[in-house]
């Protein structure tokens, strides 16, 4: 194969196996300088793996990587950095006790003399990088004090720190709101104008259409096709990704008048202040708001994960109290957390164990777990959400992010949960599975479950919700009934006054 003088980055025939499982089958990719190139595919298609190969996080088994026409050997993260490749990781890769600035410069700290870290200079530089993304982030705060969205922005900043020629972005906006996405778009514009190439992985197709000139589509670890984005209509792209066309569904309502859950005056510090809400049987209640408006915290309070300062939660007429998720689960409530890696999965345990965890009593007879039953039930549920690869005995940590999310949702289905709290339910979920999850939510509603959906994707909130609450700075600032739901109305309540 001849190298293409025009290509900034050229991958040919990249293969990668984890033990006996081959996840990349000779993938090729070519990107011009200054190009934003989409890398698309379903959950588990191999996108992250490919990028991890590119960045030396995992070593590939075969294939050639060329940067600006010259082949490079990438076996360690250092090699990638030397080749001018930086990456934004899908799973946040940060050190909780180090400050924002230290995390941004981790592994490439600015020095004063040969021996010392120049903290001041690092903070100054970190502030400069963050100015374009989120000037509110305190660069001297330890990462553990940051919210997910802020941490994702720090992750982006890490990639921008170096003078990279190629930046691989693996779902950089999965926790971000449209406003922050706009800032990222601006940053990418500046970068590409300087000739930096960007590989952009996202399941948010509108973003892909905003940013990318071309896209490479993977399916099951194989190269499917390369398309020019503006010219190729979305249904075509989706068909390449999923292998079928997706029906465009409309919102259907199953809401009733029967109250399932009442939340009164729920308060915790400044994060959530005096939240009131009522959830009805069969209702999908959307919660919108800007990053940091307190939606995650509200769900955590309702789920009993954090202790409220005051306020009450009443489920089916019975008050539940205390920070005790287990009691809420018994009362029929389940939380699909936003931060999957931290709050969701038990990495080394198989999918079945992760699914069975909240409802062990359902799978137990005479004190012993009925492994066969758990296995059968897990398989049934995972078939429904199309787990890839379809092996429920594998440790959940070896699945792609989106597939982990499916398992976490499956856990509540298995538990027979009646009230679902979804925090960013489709974060990291591919378009095909997204449709499946929407269908699932609708199905749950039709069966009389009550559902709270927090989402930063307005189309998602609008698509799913019977009613929308908008949060702003810890308070519920607006309530929109079905006929009032619109992007404009949500934005009006979400933005702080003054």
């Amino acid at each position, binding site marked *: 194969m001849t190298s293409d003088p025009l290509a900034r980055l050229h991958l040919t025939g990249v293969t990668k196996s984890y033990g006996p499982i081959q996840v990349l089958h000779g993938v090729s990719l070519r990107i011009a300088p200054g190009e934003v190139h989409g890398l698309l595919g379903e959950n588990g298609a191999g996108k992250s793996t490919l990028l991890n190969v590119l960045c030396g996080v995992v070593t590939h088994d075969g294939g050639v990587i060329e940067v600006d026409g010259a082949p490079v050997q990438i076996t360690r993260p250092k090699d990638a950095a030397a080749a001018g490749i930086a990456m934004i990781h899908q799973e946040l890769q940060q050190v909780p006790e180090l400050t924002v600035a230290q995390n941004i410069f981790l592994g490439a700290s600015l020095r004063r003399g040969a021996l010392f870290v120049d903290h001041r200079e690092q903070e100054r530089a970190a502030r400069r990088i963050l100015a374009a993304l989120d000037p509110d982030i305190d660069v001297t705060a330890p990462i553990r004090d940051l919210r997910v969205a802020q941490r994702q922005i720090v992750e982006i900043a890490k990639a921008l720190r170096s003078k990279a020629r190629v930046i691989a972005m693996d779902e950089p906006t999965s926790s971000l709101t449209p406003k922050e996405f706009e800032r990222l778009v601006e940053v990418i514009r500046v970068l590409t104008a300087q000739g930096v190439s960007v590989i952009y992985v996202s399941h948010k197709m509108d973003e892909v259409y905003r940013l990318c000139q071309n896209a490479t589509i993977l399916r099951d670890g194989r190269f499917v096709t390369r398309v020019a984005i503006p010219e190729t209509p979305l249904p075509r792209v989706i068909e390449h990704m999923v292998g079928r066309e997706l029906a465009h569904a409309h919102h259907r309502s199953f809401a009733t008048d029967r109250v399932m859950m009442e939340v009164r005056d729920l308060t915790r510090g400044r994060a959530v202040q005096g939240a009131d809400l009522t959830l009805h049987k069969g209702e999908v209640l959307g919660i919108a708001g800007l990053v940091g408006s307190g939606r995650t915290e509200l769900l955590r309070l309702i*789920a009993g*994960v954090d202790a409220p300062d005051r306020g009450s939660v009443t489920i089916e007429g019975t008050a539940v109290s205390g920070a005790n*998720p*287990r009691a*809420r*689960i*018994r009362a029929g409530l389940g*939380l699909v*957390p936003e931060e999957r890696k*931290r*709050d*969701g*999965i*038990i*990495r*080394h*345990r*198989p999918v079945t*164990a*992760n699914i*069975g*965890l*909240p409802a*062990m*009593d359902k799978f*137990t007879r005479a*004190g*012993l*777990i009925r*492994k066969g039953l758990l*296995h*059968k039930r897990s*398989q049934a549920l995972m078939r429904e959400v199309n787990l890839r690869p379809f*092996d*429920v*005995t*594998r440790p959940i940590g070896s699945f792609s992010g989106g597939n982990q999310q499916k398992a976490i949702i499956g*856990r509540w289905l298995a*538990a027979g949960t009646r009230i679902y709290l979804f925090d960013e339910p489709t974060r990291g979920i591919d378009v095909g599975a997204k449709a499946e999850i929407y269908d699932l939510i609708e199905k749950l509603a039709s069966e009389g479950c009550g559902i709270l959906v927090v989402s930063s994707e307005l189309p998602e909130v609008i698509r799913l919700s019977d009613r929308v609450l908008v949060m702003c700075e810890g308070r519920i600032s607006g309530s929109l009934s079905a006929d009032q739901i619109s992007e404009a109305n949500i934005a009006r309540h979400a933005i702080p006054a003054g």
Partner: protein
Amino acid sequence: MSKALTSLPLISRIRFRDAGTLVGLILIAIVFSFLSPSFLTLPNLVNILQQSSINACIALGMTLVIISGGIDLSVGPVAALSATLGAAMMVAGVPVPLAVLGAIATGVACGFFNGALIAWGGLQPFIVTLGGLSLYRALALIYTGGTPIFGLPGEFRAIANGTLLGLPGPVIAVGVLAFVAWVILTKTPLGEYLMAVGGNPEAARVAGVPVTLTKLSAYMISGGLASIASLILIGRLGAAEPTLGNLWELDAIAASAIGGASLMGGRGSIVGTLIGCVILGALRNGLTLLNVQAFYQLLATGIIIIVAMLIDRATSGK
């Protein structure tokens, strides 16, 4: 059929993991049986099992604690405290079963105290049980004034010194306990909870795992097993010393680790731990048979612990 296929990798993976430890054991056994003809004789093998049984009993509890993401350094002193209390009861004429229950209750209570500080107090397991290491030892010493308690009733001693089907009582007892621990770990919700709490405590809590209770159980089981181990020991020795159980924690941790438990929590195996105990027991037995001088015994112990881990790592893959 699909089920059989999909569940195969898991089973073979587990077996494969413990097989690594087994390879280590077999290698050690081969070396010793070349060096000493009496090593591979039936009575000596029974002897090794018997000598490993106390460490195994402790290590079972330790494995559960380690899987839950903790560590229990206080097992030795807990054993000493419950042994001396139990022995004192027996000597005072309390019926043997009652005294045994009393001893086990003491161990469980110590475990509860550790567990409470860890689960409710939010303290680090290492440091809580390090404090316990001094605390329980001090209680045992103060209670006995530092002198051993002699004169245990014969009916009690008969249990520890009896045999069944050619196997010594302690081996059978620990075998039964190991089976129970294995069932707990692999077949019951508690086992699942232990793995979850050790693997990711925050996620476990969100998923409704009773994290506090799970941790408490682990330490209580460990305390209870420590007292059972001490009962086996005093049954065999005929005396309960307040200083017994010195360094038991290190042997038990070594056995668990050799058996594949990760001190970061979330991973470990009962079978592996048992093999680990036998490795350590065989090691000590073999060195005694070879009449290796004290300093070189110490040397061999250090080297073999490290080599066992290396073999284990090499054979069980990453």
